[in-house]
Every structure is written in structure tokens, then in C-alpha cells.
């Protein structure tokens, strides 16, 4: 090919691309652009994408585009973008991270979405969930879902262990006696006498511990907002987890089994969030059932959190209207979102026949009346790290639950005091 021909082809390509670009600009010029950020990088993101396509079709004057990032870096990028005034119009944050974002002043008051003729009825949300987004008399976001921790079981293994209901279907253990019996009966030893298949394994230790806190009437902080990690309930909850390790009912800490082991059918039961359902659905021959976490303490209970839809503070009225329309759409179509492995925040959606056909989500949703969210605190990351360390030390046998939680509590109180001192300080 000669130089002239090459140049001509390059020029032609540039013209075509230029036209294509200008066409795109013209077509999207009259549309209100809404950028939507979240951390849904798994199968849930694909469901969200479908919902966005549907919204864009039904609302030709608006164009929503989604950007997904790993949760690990998502909050950093969101914070920096907001500080710089380049934050997205609509974004998702966890209810547990709301206090920091609210303190930073990034969250728009969306009270109007709960008022007026097109309002999302507050009665359609659980008070406990709605209170997570409430600051004084304002609402800073719309809860889209609830994701409680629950029990995943291998149905075949349960059946072999004799855990079946009247219809012969696998039945999950419901209390401590059944749970321990199920673990023991599903543990299989290899020729050398070591467990080859485990009845139960811990996944994310911190979440597993936090799931038990409400069952033992534990808490993170007292009424004054001071750390109370070493309260009696928390110590009991951690003692229970530790007892499983001491009795060799869970794989030793250095063993990597957990969720991966459950997927590989080397573990019969695990606790994890409802959002892990998307991962299970991809496995063709995985016989699973979902159930509430058995009552292992004084009563039922689990840990949960929510994805909350928030709006950027500074937007034109037109974009704000489009953003609110989009949030309303997601909330009203949250049965689709439930399909991604979530429990909708709207009671009416949870009460629908369609939701009842989602067995895992439905089973996990039964825990809503007894669930507990992480505390509303600005030091969430530091508190989580302290809980991580305490649970890790106990499970590795390097401290008793009481000792480990006392250290965690002392450190958290230091962080709380520092946070109070720094926030009260005036320049």
C-alpha cells in the first residue's frame, strides 16, 4: 500500500470517527445525563445494567450511565471525586458508611422523595432501615435493599445427614443443638483420620462474629456512643465461635476453606451475605438452600446492611428531577434487583408472590425483624479492623474472647475520643 493511499485511508477513518462522535454528541446533547456509581462488580452489576437499559428506554429524555468499581477502592474514589466537585449525580453507599459521607456534607437531602403525590411511602420501609438514612428530620438516601447474613447449606449433604422436612426436602438446622449435630454428622474423615469434608466453615470471620452479636444481646457502643465491644453479649458470641474451633468443628484458622470450600462441596454449611447467591447461581450442579442463621444465642438475630441510593448535593433542578426519577424507578422495580441476590427494602415488594418464589432471598428476609446493622460511627473502618484483630486472635488461640475484646474496646475508645476531639476543634 502506498503512502498516499495510507494517508487517504487514515483521513477517511478520521472523518468517519468524527461523524460518529458528532452523531453521538447530537443524540445525547438534549438528554439529561445522569452518571451512576456503585461497587456492583459481580453478577449484581449485570442486573443493574439491565435495569438501567430499561429506565433509559422508558425515559428518552434521560441517559443514565453506570460506572462500577471494586468496593475496596470505590469509597476512596467517591470521596475524592466529591471533594473535587466531580462526584456522580447518583451513587450507592452502604448504610454503615453513611455517617462519614453525611459528615463530609456530600449527601443531598432527599426528604422530598418521601413526600408529595409521587412519594415513596415511608410505611413501605421498615422503621429500622429508614432510620439508618435519617438525620434529624432529613433523609439522605433511599434504601434499595437489605443484605442480611444467613445460612447456606448443601442440600444433598443435609439430606444424607437426615435433615429433611415432611416432604423429604433438605431442612436447615434451626437451633444450637441441631446446628452442632448437623456439623458433626456432615464432617467426613479421610483415611488418615483428618476431616476431608467439613460440616461448617467460617467465611469472613468479622461478619460471622457480627452475625452472632444480636443473638447474644451484644452491642458495639453504649447509649453515650462510647465503645462497648467487651460487653457480656459480645464475649459470649465470640466464645461460641471459639468453641467451634476448639472442638475441631470448623477448619483450623490456617486452612483456606470457607466460601471456596463450600463451592467445592468440601464444606456443608457457611454463613454469608445474601449477595453471594449470584456466585452460587453460576454453579450448575450445586444443590443449595438458604435459611436464617440458627438460634445459637438467646434468640434469633443476624447482621445486615443496605445499599442506599444517594444524590449529589449540587445539581440543577432538571438533573435533580431526573436523578430522583431514576432512584424511584430502581426502588419500584426492586423485584428485579432481588434477582441479583438481594432482599428488597420495600415491604410491598417483599410481600409479592414473585419474591416468595425466590427461596434464598425469601428465607434470608425472615431475619429482618431481628437484624442489626453495624454502628453509626465515623470510625467504622478502625472499628472493623479492631473486631477483625480480636476475632483473629481468639480463633488462633492467642487470646481469650474477653482479653481480645478488651484490647479492641480500649483501642476503639481511643479512636472515638480522637474523633470527638478533632471534630469539635475549630480552626
Amino acid at each position: 500500500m502506498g503512502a498516499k493511499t495510507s494517508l487517504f485511508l487514515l483521513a477517511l477513518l478520521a472523518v468517519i470517527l468524527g461523524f460518529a462522535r458528532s452523531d453521538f454528541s447530537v443524540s445525547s446533547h438534549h438528554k439529561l445525563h445522569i452518571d451512576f456509581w456503585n461497587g456492583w462488580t459481580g453478577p449484581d452489576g449485570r442486573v443493574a445494567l439491565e435495569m438501567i437499559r430499561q429506565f433509559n428506554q422508558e425515559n428518552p429524555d434521560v441517559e443514565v450511565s453506570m460506572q462500577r468499581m471494586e468496593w475496596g477502592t470505590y469509597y476512596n474514589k467517591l470521596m475524592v471525586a466529591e471533594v473535587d466537585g466531580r462526584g456522580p449525580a447518583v451513587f450507592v453507599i452502604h448504610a454503615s458508611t453513611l455517617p462519614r459521607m453525611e459528615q463530609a456534607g456530600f449527601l443531598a437531602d432527599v426528604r422530598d422523595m418521601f413526600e408529595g403525590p409521587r412519594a415513596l411511602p415511608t410505611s413501605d420501609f421498615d422503621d429500622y432501615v429508614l432510620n439508618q438514612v435519617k438525620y434529624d428530620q432529613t433523609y439522605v438516601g433511599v434504601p434499595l435493599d437489605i443484605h442480611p447474613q444467613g445460612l447456606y447449606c448443601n442440600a444433598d449433604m443435609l439430606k444424607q445427614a437426615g435433615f429433611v422436612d415432611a416432604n423429604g426436602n433438605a431442612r436447615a438446622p434451626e437451633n444450637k443443638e441441631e446446628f452442632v449435630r448437623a456439623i458433626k454428622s456432615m464432617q467426613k474423615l479421610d483415611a488418615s483420620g483428618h476431616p476431608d469434608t467439613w460440616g461448617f466453615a467460617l467465611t469472613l470471620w468479622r461478619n460471622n462474629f457480627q452475625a452472632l452479636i444480636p443473638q447474644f444481646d451484644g452491642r458495639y457502643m453504649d447509649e453515650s456512643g462510647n465503645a462497648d465491644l467487651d460487653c457480656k453479649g459480645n464475649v459470649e458470641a465470640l466464645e461460641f465461635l471459639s468453641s467451634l474451633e476448639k472442638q475441631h468443628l470448623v477448619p483450623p484458622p490456617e486452612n483456606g476453606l470457607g466460601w471456596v470450600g463450600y463451592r467445592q462441596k468440601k464444606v456443608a454449611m457457611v454463613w454469608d451475605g445474601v449477595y453471594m447467591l449470584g456466585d452460587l447461581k453460576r454453579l450448575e450442579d450445586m444443590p443449595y438452600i438458604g435459611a436464617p442463621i440458627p438460634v445459637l444465642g438467646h434468640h434469633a438475630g443476624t447482621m445486615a446492611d443496605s445499599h442506599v441510593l444517594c444524590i449529589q448535593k449540587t445539581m440543577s433542578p432538571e438533573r435533580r428531577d431526573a436523578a430522583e426519577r431514576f432512584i424511584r424507578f430502581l426502588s419500584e422495580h426492586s423485584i428485579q434487583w432481588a434477582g441479583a441476590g438481594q432482599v428488597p427494602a420495600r415491604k410491598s415488594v417483599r410481600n409479592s408472590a414473585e419474591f416468595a418464589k425466590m427461596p434464598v432471598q425469601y428465607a434470608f428476609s425472615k431475619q429482618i425483624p431481628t437484624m442489626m446493622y453495624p454502628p453509626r460511627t465515623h470510625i467504622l473502618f478502625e472499628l472493623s479492623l479492631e473486631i477483625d484483630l480480636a476475632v483473629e486472635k481468639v480463633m488462633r488461640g492467642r487470646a481469650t474472647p474477653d482479653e481480645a475484646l478488651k484490647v479492641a474496646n480500649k483501642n476503639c475508645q481511643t479512636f472515638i475520643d480522637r474523633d470527638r476531639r478533632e471534630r469539635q476543634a475549630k480552626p
Partner: protein
Amino acid sequence: MTYTRKRGMDAWLFMTPYTLSFAAFILVPVLVSLTLAFMQFDLTSRNSIQFVGTRNFSDALKDDYFWQALKATLFFVVLMVPCMITTGLAMAFGMNAMTRGRNTVRALLFLPGMLNVAVASILWGWFYNGEFGLFNYLLKGWGFAPKPWLSDRSWAMPSAVGMNLWWAVGGTSVVLLAALQQIPRSIFEAAVLDGAGNSALLNRISLPLLRPVMLFVVVTNTIAGFQVFGPTFLLTRGGPELSTRALVQYIYETAFNNYRLGYGAAMSWLLFAVVATFALVQYRFLKRSVA
């Protein structure tokens, strides 16, 4: 315009692009971080931003997690640098002695270093996996007990060093090989004629003449070791029980997870002081032995 003046202007013209990028991406951020280090600067509480003098520095020196992270970093450096130098040196000698295929081997050894640290870490994360990993599969096959490569406090840091070694030793060995090839053959030939054995050739000729390059390699590897973040963060997230949380990870978490930029900046200056001290001591010590 005189010739000298024109040359001076030309020099400035050539230097301008780099000077501008240096100012924008090095000088300004350094000055900003120095300012931040003396401030209470929390992104989530911007109305309480204020000058606090040296408080951030004194807080860091009283912070148990700071010392724990510094200890973990030192452990990494102490393990990594000698391993890197001895392995790199051995590989350089090996390649130097090769009569055929040296370039291919050199390219293959250099290849891992071309991988992004994230790719290398994820790959080695799978190698180290307790249940399904390559290493434990091999150990089991040879009749040994599997090892808790990343999930045990005593194994995690050496495992991270092992991965780092695989990833970076190619570069070090290539630099040492280049230095080795600069030594005139006539010196070795004369020594052999004088009856020098292999040990004498190594200890009396090769190593002494390699010292200037060794100085460079030791200092740069020490600096890189103190700045370790990717391998430990991606392999273990700093665990188990923070035993592999390096200082850079702690700084990152303080600044970008807790949004305490002032405190993070102060710790980064303390890290700079530690690195500079070590580098200077090494430089003086090795320079004296070179002289």
C-alpha cells in the same frame, strides 16, 4: 546573542518539559504533603481543618500500629535485600559463565519483572493457596505436609518476600551481569596464570570490582523494600493479625480509608526519614569499602 548564551537557552528549552512535570508531579505534591503533615486535615470534617504543629508526628511516635507497621517493613527489608542480592549475584555469575543462550536466559529472567505487581501477586496468591495452590499440591505429591503460606504469622512475610524475589530479581541480576561483563578478561587471565583458584577469582577480583554496582543495587533495593505495598497488600491484605501490614499500607489506609490526610502525610515523612537514614548509612559504609 552570544554563542554561550544561546547554548544556555537551548539547555533550558530542552529541560523545560521535564522541569515542568517535575514541578507539577513531584515538587508541588511534596510541598503539599509537607504542609499537610503539620495540619489536622480530615476529608470528612473539613470545617475542623487546622494547623496543629508537630502533633501528627508525636502522635505517630506514640501509635502502636505505626511501630508495628514499621517493624513489619523492616522485617521485609531485612529478608528481601540479602535474598535479592545473593540470588541476583548467583544468577549473574551463572549467566556470565554461559557460552550459549545467555540472552534468552536473561530475557526469561527479566520477564516476571515486566508483569504488573497486581498480576504477579494474584498469580502467586493462587500458588500459595492452602487448599488448591500449586506449592501445597507439589508438597503433598512429595509426601510433605502442606504449609500455611499466607495464613500463618510466621510464614506470611517470607512468602511475600518469595513472591517479590521472583518478580524483581531479574532486574537486579541483569544489572549485576552488566557490571560483571565490564570487568576486563585480562585481569582474570593474569590471575589464573598467577595460580589463582575459583575462590580467589571470586573474592579478590569479581566481588571487589562489583562493589560500586553493589552499592547502587543495595541502596535501591533497600529503598524499594521500605516502600513495599503491592506484594504484601495484594497477597495478604496485611494479615494475618497485621503481621505483613507494611508502613506504606498503614499510611494508605490512614489517608484514603480513614481520610486523615494530615496524619498520613506525617507518617509518610517519618518513613522518608527512616529510608533516607538507612540509605545514607549504607552509602557511606559501602562507599568506604569501595574506596
